[in-house]
């Protein structure tokens, strides 16, 4: 090999290595900047107290509470529904049937639809259509459900995170060994009994991973809840499904762009970002650990 190709080769490999390290460097800078910016404000008190003085001081407890409530209601809606879909796709539908292929295509499409579109859907379908109809049928036109609230925001978020659940559960179901299924069937169990006693318990960790990933996604998304229920400031915590709620991501967005004095509240913004980042980071890490265990078991 002549010298010229060797130099070109070194340069080429160097460029690819540089690109990889550039990405890593940006990730590290991002983390470091947010940790440094937020660490002084970050404290137990910050996490557990209400905002004060028109959000200039105080903590972010309502935003944490609202986010937790949001992902809880979201999971209650998305996890059973996603699990059932995954069971249908892997256990009942034949790989080549048009219905199954259509469902798969729909799930993949759902996974790549911009999150703001979910917000529009939530507004048009849940709030105006379902909520509006509920008001006119049950409450005689009195406005209660036909406006943004935590229930509609959670259901919107559930639609967004549904593909995450389906994909994780499917993977786990496929990892359940064939022999176990066959043994169960050979012993006289029906298909449904096999699914209930063998397949679902066997894919429990996959359902868990899916739930955690969905929660991580739901906790961080802001666009779908911009106009389906998130509120700028609330003096009290949401107590009913028809209440609005505060949210960590929305809190960051509002504080950084719409608040009266952005500079003065900068430490609060950094600390809130730090909290959100730590939350999603820990959730993702847990999911990665559970998943790698699952993969090892499958081997």
């Amino acid at each position, binding site marked *: 090999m002549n010298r010229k190709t060797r130099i070109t080769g070194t340069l080429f490999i160097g460029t690819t290595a540089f690109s990889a390290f550039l990405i*890593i460097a940006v990730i590290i800078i991002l983390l470091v900047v947010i940790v440094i910016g937020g660490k002084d404000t970050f404290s137990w008190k910050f996490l557990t107290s209400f905002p004060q003085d028109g959000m200039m001081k105080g903590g972010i407890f309502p935003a944490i509470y609202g986010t937790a409530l949001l992902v809880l209601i979201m999971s209650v809606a998305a996890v059973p529904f996603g699990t059932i879909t995954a069971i249908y796709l892997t256990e009942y539908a034949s790989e080549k049937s048009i219905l199954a292929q259509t469902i798969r295509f729909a799930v*993949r499409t759902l996974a*790549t*639809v911009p999150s*703001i*579109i979910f917000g529009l859907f939530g507004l048009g379908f849940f709030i105006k259509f379902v909520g509006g109809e509920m008001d006119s049928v049950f409450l005689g036109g009195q406005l209660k459900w036909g406006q943004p609230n935590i229930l509609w925001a959670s259901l919107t978020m559930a639609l967004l995170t549904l593909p995450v659940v389906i994909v994780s559960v499917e993977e786990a179901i496929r990892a359940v060994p064939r022999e176990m299924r066959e043994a169960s069937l050979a012993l006289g169990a029906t298909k449904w009994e096999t699914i209930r006693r063998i397949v679902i318990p066997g894919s429990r960790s996959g359902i868990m991973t899916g739930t955690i990933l969905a929660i991580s996604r739901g906790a961080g998304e802001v666009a779908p809840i911009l106009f389906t229920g998130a509120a700028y400031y609330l003096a009290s915590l949401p107590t009913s499904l028809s209440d609005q709620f505060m949210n960590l991501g929305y809190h960051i967005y509002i504080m950084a762009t719409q608040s009266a004095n952005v500079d003065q509240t900068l430490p609060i913004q950094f600390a809130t970002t730090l909290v959100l980042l730590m939350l999603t980071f820990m959730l993702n890490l847990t999911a990665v650990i559970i998943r790698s265990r699952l993969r090892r078991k499958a081997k």
Partner: protein
Amino acid sequence: MIENQAKVEDTVVHEADEATMKNLIGKEWFPVSDRPRYGLIPLLVGTLKITLLAILFAAPIAILAALFSASFAPYWLREIIKPAIELLAGFPSVVIGFFALMVMASFFQNIFGYDTRLNAFVGGVAMALAAIPIIYTITEDALTAVPRSYTEASLALGASRWQTALFVTLPAATPGIFAAILLGIGRIFGETMIALMATGNAAMISVNPFESVRTLAATIGAEMAEVVFGDTHYSVLFLIGSLLFIFTFGLNALAEFYVKGRLVKRFQGK
């Protein structure tokens, strides 16, 4: 940042508050004024500009990085790079938007000395951060899926490692890389929070990357909360939503056509 919208004197006589075709292809987006104008052209131009900028940053870096971790990096290094970039995929976009707004905007302003602090360039770089994990993951998958016999044949014929990577592995993985770029574009096109926070949100038609832009997605995000239900403005925002949906749907169908199955699953499932 939404207040950046300059108020232009309302002297031109327009039709009533209607989203006629003429109104929609107009060059001005002033939905809230005495004579509302719903010209989608500035929003489209803004969205395309920022998508182009972001993909120009994201695609080369992500593809080269994928090539590095698939072909050159030792095993232990790959085990660091891959999870780190997957970690980036898990960052909420509001966090990236916040970082762009508070840190990147000033940083780049010091380097380039532009006037508008929040502009298409800052937004483009920030959106590239959101698109890089997608492009990287799918490209990496496509590169590692290239059969070993290809690379072994190339090495046996006397090609060096970099020649094999550049002239054998990379071309063999082209459909996958193409799909990766398409999905990256789809992600950037519909990204709302980064656009809202880091692009300045002024609807103007210009090719200068250092001027503010207002994207389609950000327009929905910024205006939907204040709009009156059933209003023309409300309908126009839903029209924008439909455009966004149709466009991303087309991109994904195209990507799907190239690489059937299992790729979206990878980056969605982290």
